[in-house]
């Protein structure tokens, strides 16, 4: 630490006796003396410094929280105190032993580390609750094979009276519903999204239409999912009313709750994701390949279908998979559009349909048999459904990564 700096900071920091390196000449100095270290050694703290400070923080934090909490320790308080003590202590010691710049550097590094740990706590907690409670749910024998229709008819009192295991039932109907709705949404969204991105990348030449589409796809990305649900209802009602007037089918107002309605709502959320990811993938296809194809006298549509898309297919597939993962966990739009049901429904065009996210919501919100001693069984099943849903989403994500990595065409060149 230079003399100047010490002098400047003397109000906050006492002059250290253990400064490494020779003391600089006092009086007027070359400006570079302000920043240049005096010696190659002595500008770092020993390796044990940070772990030791952390240990001090943990111990002192424990003692203080023990005293505050009246002999019982609150873990959150303990963590907060330990973090504060660790960050402050290491800052002050570094500043006193080395210099202000090193201390600031260390302060921000510690803050980043602490922030990372803070971020991990809720995330681990979420996974922990889902896995531990969900495991109980998915190991029930009926979880995978039954729907809830048996239980729907049975009241809590009856179940207790009969003295049998009160909660059979499972999530089969919800899994089937989720898969059907998502599949339908995918079948509608992918061709529209893919063709749009082909138009944007291959055909438009930056005209007003393509700029408009890009802009409104961005707007669509920001549509809140609940608004997409409202749209699904509106679109289906309009279609049903029109069909009714034309005599294609009969429709009573408000009777729009169907799987297809949910699929339409999900399309609004899915199309922009598909457009954006596939657009990105098509843009990275090297122009050289298109030109090579044109130079062979190949028409543009064949070039797009046989050269551009096959080259980008792994990225497109990965993007579509991610889009599916994004919408399969959506709750609010499906709740508005497909409602709830206790039994399996295979028909996208008739009657409500249960889906996994809605099932989870429904079961937690209104545990079967009402809140009480048996609610825990409902909750276990709901956590189990959450585990299944997370597994599906994570598997889709993993598949997307594998597709993107393994099936990517080998790069041109050596």
């Amino acid at each position, binding site marked *: 630490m230079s003399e100047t700096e010490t002098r400047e900071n003397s109000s906050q920091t006492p002059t250290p006796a253990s400064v490494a390196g020779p003391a600089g000449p006092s009086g007027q100095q070359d400006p570079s003396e302000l*920043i240049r270290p005096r010696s190659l050694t002595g500008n770092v703290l020993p390796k044990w410094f940070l772990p030791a400070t952390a240990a001090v923080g943990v111990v002192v934090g424990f003692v203080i929280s023990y005293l505050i909490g009246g002999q019982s320790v609150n873990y*959150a308080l303990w963590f907060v105190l330990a973090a504060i003590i660790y960050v402050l202590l290491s800052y002050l010691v570094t500043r006193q032993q080395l210099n202000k*710049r090193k201390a600031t550097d260390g302060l921000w*590094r510690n*803050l980043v*580390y602490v*922030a*990372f740990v803070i*971020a991990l706590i*809720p*995330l681990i*907690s*979420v996974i922990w609750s*889902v896995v531990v409670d969900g495991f109980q749910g998915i190991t029930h024998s009926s979880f995978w094979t039954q729907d809830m229709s048996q239980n729907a008819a049975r009241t809590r009192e009856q179940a207790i009276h009969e003295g049998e295991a009160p909660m059979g039932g499972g999530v089969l109907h919800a899994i089937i519903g989720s898969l059907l709705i998502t599949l339908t949404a995918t079948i509608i969204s992918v061709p*529209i999204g*893919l*063709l*749009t991105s082909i*138009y*944007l990348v291959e055909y438009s030449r930056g005209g007003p239409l393509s700029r*408009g*589409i890009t802009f*409104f*796809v961005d*707007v669509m*990305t*920001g*549509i*809140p999912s*609940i*608004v997409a649900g*409202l*749209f699904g*209802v*509106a*679109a289906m*009602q309009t279609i049903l009313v029109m069909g009714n007037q034309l005599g294609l089918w009969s429709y009573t*107002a*408000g009777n729009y709750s169907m799987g297809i309605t949910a699929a339409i709502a999900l*399309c*609004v959320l899915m*199309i922009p994701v598909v*457009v954006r990811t596939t657009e990105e993938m098509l843009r990275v296809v090297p122009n050289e390949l298109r030109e090579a194809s044109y130079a062979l006298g190949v*028409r*543009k*549509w064949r070039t797009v279908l046989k050269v551009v898309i096959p080259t980008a297919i792994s990225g497109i597939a990965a993007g579509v998979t991610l889009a599916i993962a994004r919408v*399969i*966990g*959506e*709750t*609010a739009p499906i*709740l508005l559009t497909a409602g709830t049901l206790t039994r399996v429904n295979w028909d996208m065009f008739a009657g409500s349909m249960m889906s996994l996210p809605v099932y*989870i919501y429904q079961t*937690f*919100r209104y545990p079967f048999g009402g809140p009480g001693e048996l609610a825990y069984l409902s*909750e276990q099943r*709901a956590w189990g459904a*959450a585990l299944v*849903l997370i597994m599906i*989403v994570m598997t889709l994500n993993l598949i997307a990564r594998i597709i993107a990595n393994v099936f990517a065409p080998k790069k041109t060149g050596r």
Partner: protein
Amino acid sequence: MTTDSTDTRAQRRKSPKKPENALVSADRAGAGLDRGFAGLAKAAGIFILIILAFVAIFLSWNSVGALYQEEEGLIIGRFLSYAWPFALGTVVVAILALIMGAPIAIAVALYISHYAPPKASKTIGYIIDLLAAIPSVVYGAWGMFVLAPAMVPLYHWLSQWLYTWPEENLGWGIPFFAGSPGLGQNIFTASVVLAVMILPIISSVCREIFIQTPKLHEEAALALGATRWEMIKMAVFPFARPGIISGVMLGLGRALGETMAVVMVVSGLGFQLSIISPGNSTIPREIALNFGETGHGTERWHQLVALGLVLFVITLAVNMVARWIVSRHKEFSGAN
């Protein structure tokens, strides 16, 4: 080349429409397919515009019923007095979530890009990305069963020291912390859940842009003797500013539109100043809880749709502001 194909090619060349130019193509069908495919692609793009127009038209058209009823004339005042607590609640929850989530998210991104051991950073990045994929209903359940009870001691403490104590001793306590926390199912808990939910989103956007910082800029800073933090201030942040802003705005948009976590975490309905006792609501929660039970075409139904329109406009405004900020900063960032 085989004889067949040579023949067809020769025929094609020998059958000109205008004898003076043998190149005029007889391949009308091929050119037609070309135009057809281009038209199909264009139609898909236009279809998207139509969908969006339909969303906007539907929301606006059906909102009219909330502002005007035949018997009563204009009832804008009634709608506003109905809607403002929800709009306010939505904005407050989202901003609280952003205040808590964004700094931590940026720090996590910085940890992954510049602090974590290089071998581990990729894995950590994957894990954070996977967490963005957890459905909101799961976060909602977690907030309801795990977080809310865990937050109750904090709420007691806040209520004690920021409201009760100052009120008794100074005559005035901060009203945001008044009241009894009950089971902790309030909008503050909801905003913590939202903070957790938007953390991976903001973090992954920021991480991508931090990683893209030109190595040359970083090394230039380090070669001047900068510490790691000084290097980050000099090279990384100026480069990444538009990316950070757009990531944060993305998180804000997500928090504004989030439905299920709020529906599950918050209990109670009435508006109140306190953020730590049950009550208050957001627009998505109001719609989700009531839309199914409300008869189609009633004033209440129109009010719910109008709330949807308000939400749509708010998120749209946030996105526009983000875009504007990003475009304003672009020329200085060096990110091209």
